[in-house]
């Protein structure tokens, strides 16, 4: 620890702290322009000048200077004020000062400091900047005339996002923050640069001129896209969500978001939102009153209850409280256990795999472990696409904490390009075999942790690995035996090692077995139950983890999603209640799903939009988005976080909580669950990991719950998919800009990724003589779709990729839930 004096205040801080941080810890504010707590010190703007007595009163930047013992610092003297004023005068010299039309006004560091230091005139004169403004980008408007060269955008894009879109071009007075060849910005559009820009040089175009910063209500909430569970602040005015506001103190991610969280909020106030209930009359959906719609639903459910032919599919995007009432409605109101979510398999790694392996449907690690680990083995480079802000954590781990990153993947990707990352390209669908071969190496080379032998099922598991030796599976997996062995040795030798697997509707191959193989590996290597160790299973949607925590899948005898679809087709399910799922587009085998829904006598769909599934319904109930309700989401990292109501329901929409509750009361005759808070109290009483939580203890920050775990070796056999000669392997998954099917209603993602595509490697593209944007027909045994070609260097030969989100030409018309779909591609 180092002792020093700042403005006559005694301060004790750890070694290597900067003067700025020491002052901050002591509650003393030093103005900054180019410094950001997330970024490495830069020292470019000289706004943070302070005087240090030992340096004969010389002015030095507080943000880059580390403290020394006995230092005496003054943060404000007349000289300092003068120096800061000079800095501002020089910055304003060529600055346009067009605050009246600048969206940053009110939230602009330059403006605020100019006001604070009363820079009313300028001793210097010069011409203003004349840089061309980039108006064409749909998401980020760049006006380099307003840039103060703080370099934060370039640094965040490089240090945290690891994209590197910007760099300074030219020098001295000519210097400008530019893009590659000074061309248009074409990047991940995460908006991180926009959030850290201290002035109005980088602005969110979708929000351009929409409102003044000070006129908006700022409502803290949680992103409703992926399972990362980023906290965000909604900017609300006149009952509309106008933007997301950056708050560097929010969440583990310090306010950083990905393109979905930052730019895809428009679905909330989309014109396409359902505003009234609809009912099918004479073959067409017509608007009806809530009374009429609810009466019809209630009557139908009452008779279905007697007949026992009802089932429900619910989206894990709902709050825990809503899922809780949904379950109550089914169990107590309808006496049925036929309910599930996410096609069943998207959560089986948790609900079946983790349950058997560690006794609870959760990961054995949390997101914070990523930066604490020594070796991180990611299964599928797609972890970046599915959970981009977890990807930022990986970037930071690799770059700042020297995390040794290894990736087993069927294609290359963003993660494989990180410095020092080692990628093992495997043949699609062989991941489980490969993970078992890693474990087998430990067994064969006597590297198994001593404590592992006492874990239940050890012997049996060890026996099950016969035939899984690297030599035996290397060829099948597309790796060499040596590669597998070295990876296994490195994994076990690392002091801390973490395994990471993304889950989701696009990843049917990420099964119970794969998760279990990973758990087994972590037990065998003694990388379980310690900091920086374990298996992190990234549940797909914002509340997927909550849905499995609450047991929103059949446990005792009920039908799971696949059985429900089969039941519909076979006529044993006559009434289907779909809440928020768009199964026509997202569940495997579109034709089968459509045929099944066609067979259902009475289809109830509750959604924000008239989705492809809702269009087939007999009754459509308009529901509320996350911005219109209160509740909690549980992130993939097991953080239970509070969602707050930002706006009133759109049109006549009602929250899922209210709708389920009404039906529950009327069908069960029991009293209603008073409000989300009461529901949460009931949840904490029934879900062990949540015990003791209340809305108050969650606060703004949320609470990461740590469930008790009992490790158990489970036999997890892997099998390679049988290749079909002459065909290519199609793997599905998530595109970086989308999450599920909801982001199709967010304008941001639709600007940069408006339609489905098939990604083909360069070699294959040459062989097929196709180019970017060519339209090709992709044919599988299940059907054919026409998709645009995207040629890239990510795909190995013989493997193609297609994202699953899109409704038109949806990939589930050719994929039926197998880890690999064999296809032919023709022009």
């Amino acid at each position: 620890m180092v002792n020093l004096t700042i403005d006559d205040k005694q301060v004790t801080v750890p070694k290597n702290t900067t003067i700025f941080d020491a002052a901050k810890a002591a509650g003393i504010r030093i103005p900054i322009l180019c410094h950001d707590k997330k970024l490495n010190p830069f020292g470019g703007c000289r706004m943070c000048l302070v005087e240090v007595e030992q340096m004969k009163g010389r002015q030095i930047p507080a943000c880059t200077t580390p403290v020394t013992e006995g230092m005496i610092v003054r943060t404000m003297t007349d000289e300092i004020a003068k120096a800061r004023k000079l800095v501002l005068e020089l910055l304003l010299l060529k600055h346009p000062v067009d605050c009246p039309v600048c969206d940053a006004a009110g939230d602009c560091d330059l403006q605020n400091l100019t006001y604070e230091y009363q820079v009313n005139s300028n001793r210097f004169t010069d011409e203003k900047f004349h840089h061309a403004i980039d108006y064409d980008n749909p998401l980020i408007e760049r006006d380099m005339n307003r840039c103060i060269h703080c370099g934060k955008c370039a640094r965040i894009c490089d240090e945290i996002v690891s994209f590197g879109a910007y760099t300074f071009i030219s020098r001295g007075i000519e210097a400008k923050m530019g893009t590659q060849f000074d061309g248009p910005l074409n990047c991940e559009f995460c908006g991180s640069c926009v959030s850290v820009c201290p002035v109005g040089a980088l602005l969110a175009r979708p929000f351009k001129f929409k409102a003044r910063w000070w006129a908006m209500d700022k409502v803290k909430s949680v992103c409703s896209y992926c399972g990362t569970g980023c906290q965000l602040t909604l900017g609300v005015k006149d009952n509309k969500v106008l933007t997301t506001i950056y708050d560097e103190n929010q969440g583990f991610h310090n306010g950083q978001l990905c393109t979905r969280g930052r730019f895809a909020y428009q679905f909330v106030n989309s014109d396409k939102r359902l505003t009234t209930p609809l009912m099918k009359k004479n073959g067409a959906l017509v608007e009806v009153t809530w009374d009429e719609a609810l009466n019809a639903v209630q009557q139908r459910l009452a008779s279905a209850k007697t007949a026992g032919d009802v089932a429900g599919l619910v989206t894990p995007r709902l709050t825990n409280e809503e899922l809780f009432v949904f379950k109550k409605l089914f169990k107590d109101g309808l006496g049925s256990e036929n309910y599930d979510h996410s096609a069943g398999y998207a959560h089986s790694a948790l609900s079946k795999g983790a349950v058997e392996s560690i006794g609870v449907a959760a990961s054995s690690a949390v997101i914070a472990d990523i930066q604490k680990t020594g070796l991180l083995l990611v299964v599928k480079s797609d972890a970046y696409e599915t959970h981009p802000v977890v990807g930022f954590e990986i970037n930071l781990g690799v770059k700042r904490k020297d995390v040794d990153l290894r990736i087993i993947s069927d294609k290359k990707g963003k993660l494989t390009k990180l410095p020092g990352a080692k990628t093992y390209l495997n043949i699609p669908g062989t991941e489980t075999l490969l993970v078992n071969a890693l474990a087998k190496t430990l067994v064969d080379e006597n590297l198994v942790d001593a404590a592992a032998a006492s874990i239940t099922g050890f012997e049996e598991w060890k026996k099950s690995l016969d035939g899984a030796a690297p030599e035996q599976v290397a060829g099948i997996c597309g790796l060499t035996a040596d590669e597998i062995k070295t990876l296994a040795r490195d994994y076990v030798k690392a002091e801390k090692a973490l395994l990471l697997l993304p889950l989701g509707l696009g990843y049917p191959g990420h099964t119970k077995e794969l998760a279990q193989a990973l758990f087994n590996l972590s037990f065998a290597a003694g990388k379980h139950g310690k900091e920086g160790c374990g298996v992190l299973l990234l549940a797909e949607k914002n509340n997927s983890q909550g849905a499995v925590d609450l047991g929103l899948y059949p446990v005792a005898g009920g039908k799971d999603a696949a059985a429900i679809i089969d039941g519909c087709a076979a006529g044993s399910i006559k009434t289907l209640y779909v809440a928020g799922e768009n199964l026509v587009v997202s569940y495997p085998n579109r034709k089968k799903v459509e045929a099944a829904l066609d067979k259902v006598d009475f289809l109830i769909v509750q959604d924000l939009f008239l989705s492809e599934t809702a269009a087939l319904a007999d009754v459509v109930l308009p529901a509320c988005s996350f911005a219109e309700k209160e509740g909690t989401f549980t992130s993939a990292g097991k953080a239970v976080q509070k969602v707050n109501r930002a706006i009133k329901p759109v049109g006549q929409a009602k929250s899922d909580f209210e709708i389920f509750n009404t039906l529950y009361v009327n069908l069960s005759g029991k009293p209603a669950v008073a409000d989300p808070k009461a529901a949460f109290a009931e949840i904490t009483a029934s879900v062990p990991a949540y015990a003791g939580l209340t809305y108050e203890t969650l606060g703004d920050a949320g609470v990461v719950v740590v469930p008790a775990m009992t490790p158990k070796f489970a036999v997890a056999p892997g099998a390679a998919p049988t290749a079909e000669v002459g065909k290519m392997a199609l793997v599905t998954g998530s595109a970086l800009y989308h999450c599920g099917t909801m982001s199709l209603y967010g304008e941001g993602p639709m600007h940069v990724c408006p339609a489905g595509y098939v990604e083909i490697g360069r070699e294959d593209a040459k062989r097929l003589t196709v180019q970017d944007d060519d339209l090709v027909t992709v044919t599988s045994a299940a059907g054919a779709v026409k998709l645009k070609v995207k040629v890239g260097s990510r795909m190995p030969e013989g493997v193609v990729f297609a994202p699953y989100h899109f409704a038109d030409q949806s990939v589930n018309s050719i994929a039926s839930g197998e880890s690999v779909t064999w296809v032919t591609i023709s022009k």
Partner: protein
Amino acid sequence: MIKPLLQGLKITLTHLFKKPVTLQYPTERPQIEARFRGLHALKVAHSSAKCVACYLCPTVCPAKCITVEAGEDAQHNKYAEKYEIDMLRCIFCGYCVEACPVDALKMTGEFELANYKRSDFVFTKERLLEK
């Protein structure tokens, strides 16, 4: 007793021969001073409103009667797509004029603001444009 009565009469009589204070409105009209704060007008330059929709006037207005909605024109400039003042709520304080950073707003001598319908008291941008 009689004295105050006579005093009163005297005042009345002197006033009989003085020029009347009352204006015979509407046949007679008051003289409006330049600094009078009447109906607002949006100043025009180069045949369009000078207002750049900075939202400072609605922010400063103590009666919260100004509604501005900004838009982006073909040259990517900010302009007031909607500019409305609810004259039933305006207290004619003139803060809006003072706040305007581009001198786009003024207050005219126009004081005859009576209308038949409440909605007609909401002056839209077209009605506020300087004639």
